[in-house]
């Protein structure tokens, strides 16, 4: 039998050259250096994720990534960055990365309340590489994910946020990741958020781009949630260039009796893969991953998630709503794993999509892998058009078609947005939805009572 040696794509070759050139300069010695080397060897063996891998079936990165752009090495400053930083969209402490590099000068580091500490990943890796290296280990269910390997190999900076046990933050903490878009480049970053036992916090991740150049983004945020801690998480990916290729990984390790509630919003997202790997490390924990995808033109949004019930009495909820217009593509792949000893697991997964155009596509793939016998798990997936009867009813009351459609669409995704409990953040999410709906065929803004 002939041994088939897969040919490397141009992008894969470029990545190999880049890694060889800069690995000595990447922060983190000792265990971290070894981890980067191993991660890159793993990547080289697998190559870029492609459609023959079930978990990447609908987002063929190997084909999509024609060339690997050079890694951003220096923070860029532009008027657009300054203008964006001047806007405080959410009332809350803000920690800023620009092109993946932590900017202490732009972050609210002074007078941080007791119980919270923030520093850059590069700094943390330099000071205590071995401690941080542990956080770079991929979760079991994502061990084969070569995008995550690439992230571990190249991630040069990000935010390390520690919340002390028992601390409650009234205002959200905002991780603002700005892309300068000044040149075609790659941004590889990783943030680490450790939430101590019993702490309560809202964390908002904003991914925005302000410049004209399309970029390649590979970002991961790891959450380690202590026993009894409660986290509300919101991620918004907005204002991306159409040609931007982006992988966002969310890695969550939950303690016992903990709660993690997430809403992920993608609006003007270019090509986006959001992959989430959540592991129940302790009993009686609950987690919810929810999301809104508003897609048009040739945009592509892939939501892939794995809920790994590795402990008993866990509760998981997923609810994703997608509106797909133009020739855009939406993907939902959700997998709930219930390990043999994880009895009394309660899982519910739903993905609903509305297609507004004949050229629009939605792939829904819910999966359950249940190895325990005393569990309640269910899933539902729908793909539909706007209900013609509802539209007629609204129009028969005098609402012009665009306004009637906008009302129905806003209500459709509003169900998810309403899970954002922080009022200020909820308002920002609503504003993004309204702005997107208003751009459809000159549809007017909604009048609210």
């Amino acid at each position: 039998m002939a041994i088939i040696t897969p040919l490397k794509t141009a992008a894969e070759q470029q990545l190999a050259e880049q890694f060889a050139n800069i690995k000595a300069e990447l922060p983190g010695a000792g265990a971290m250096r070894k981890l980067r080397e191993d991660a890159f060897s793993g990547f080289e063996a697998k190559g870029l994720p492609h459609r023959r891998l079930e978990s990447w079936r609908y987002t063929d990165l190997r084909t999509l990534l024609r060339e690997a752009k050079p890694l951003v090495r220096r923070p860029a400053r532009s008027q657009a960055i300054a203008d964006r930083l001047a806007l405080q969209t959410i009332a809350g402490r803000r920690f800023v990365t620009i092109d993946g590099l932590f900017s202490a000068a732009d972050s609210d580091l002074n007078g941080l309340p007791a119980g919270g500490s923030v520093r850059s990943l590069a700094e943390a890796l330099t000071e205590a590489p071995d401690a941080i290296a542990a956080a770079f280990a991929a979760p079991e269910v994502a061990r084969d994910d070569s995008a995550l390997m690439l992230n571990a190999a190249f991630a040069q900076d990000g935010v390390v946020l520690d919340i002390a046990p028992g601390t409650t933050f009234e205002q959200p903490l905002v991780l603002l990741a700005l892309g300068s878009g000044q040149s075609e480049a790659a941004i590889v970053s990783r943030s680490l958020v450790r939430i101590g036992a019993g702490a309560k916090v809202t964390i908002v991740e904003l991914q925005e781009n302000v410049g004209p150049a399309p970029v390649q983004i590979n970002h991961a945020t790891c959450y380690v949630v202590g026993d009894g801690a409660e986290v509300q998480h919101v991620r918004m990916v907005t204002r991306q260039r159409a040609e931007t290729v982006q992988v966002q990984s969310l890695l969550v390790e939950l303690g016992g009796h903990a709660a993690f509630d997430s809403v992920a919003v993608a609006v003007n997202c270019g090509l986006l893969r959001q992959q989430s790997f959540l592991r129940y490390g302790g009993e009686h924990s609950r987690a919810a991953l929810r999301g809104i995808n508003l897609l048009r033109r040739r945009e592509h949004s892939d939501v892939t998630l794995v809920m790994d019930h590795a402990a008993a009495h866990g509760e998981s909820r997923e609810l994703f709503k997608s509106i797909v217009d133009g020739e855009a593509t939406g993907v939902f792949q959700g997998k709930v794993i219930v390990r043999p000893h994880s009895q009394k697991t309660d899982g519910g997964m739903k993905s609903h999509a509305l297609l507004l155009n004949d050229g629009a596509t939605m792939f829904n793939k819910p999966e359950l892998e249940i190895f325990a016998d005393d569990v309640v798990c269910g899933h539902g997936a729908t793909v539909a058009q706007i209900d013609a009867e509802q539209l007629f009813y609204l129009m028969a009351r005098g609402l012009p078609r665009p306004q009637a459609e906008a009302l129905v669409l806003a209500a459709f995704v509003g169900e998810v947005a309403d899970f954002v409990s922080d009022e200020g953040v909820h308002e920002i999410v609503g504003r993004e939805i309204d702005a997107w709906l208003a751009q459809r065929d000159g549809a007017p803004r909604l009048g609210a009572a």
Partner: protein
Amino acid sequence: MLEIRNLTVKIADEDKQILNGLNLTVNAGEVAAIMGPNGSGKSTLSYVIAGKEDYEVLDGEILLNGENILEMEADARAAAGIFLAFQYPLEIPGVATMTFLKAAMNAQRKARGEAELLTPDFIKQVNGAADKLGIDREMLRRPLNVGFSGGEKKRMEILQMALLQPSMCILDETDSGLDIDALRIVAEGVNALRAQNRGFLVITHYQRLLDHIVPDTVHVMSKGRIVRSGGKELALELEKSGYAAYGEAA
């Protein structure tokens, strides 16, 4: 007010013809009732007047105050004064009833070139109209028609009619699903809107509703056309004799 001439209609995606050269006139200030057996085309007529897209008009015209409305979309017809109280009002999850009412009232005002309602005026109008129909304020905060009982949905239709002040009201089986008390409240709501400059087309199977909303004229519909017209006594006669005489079983 409303003049329908030789209206011939089929279902858009099928060959099935529902209305076969229907002629009907409703004058300003008149309450006209249409009675007829199941399948005679009563609901289709109401949908075609309101502008539903599932039908294809093969021939004829519908004139509202002399203007043919057949080319208008449903929202333009509403702004021109057509109002259909649905037999089965739609549930719109996620849209608060108040939000919907305000959007509808302002859309019609805008289409007529009027200024938007100020919120205090709007709330005052809605509360006043809701109180008259025995509609709980709490209901107005809930998503439109979601989880409402049959009677509540019908009351909500009449509330919308009262707020939008249309010139031509079409009531499609408004009595279905109502108990006696609800029927009385709804009928009172309709009667309160009777006016010299407003026409009503009341579609029903049964005489019962017409005891409460007393019509000026009664039309019998069968096989997609009006086969007999008369005064309110015609309804009583139908109640006794049924529709058999008009070529269809009751």
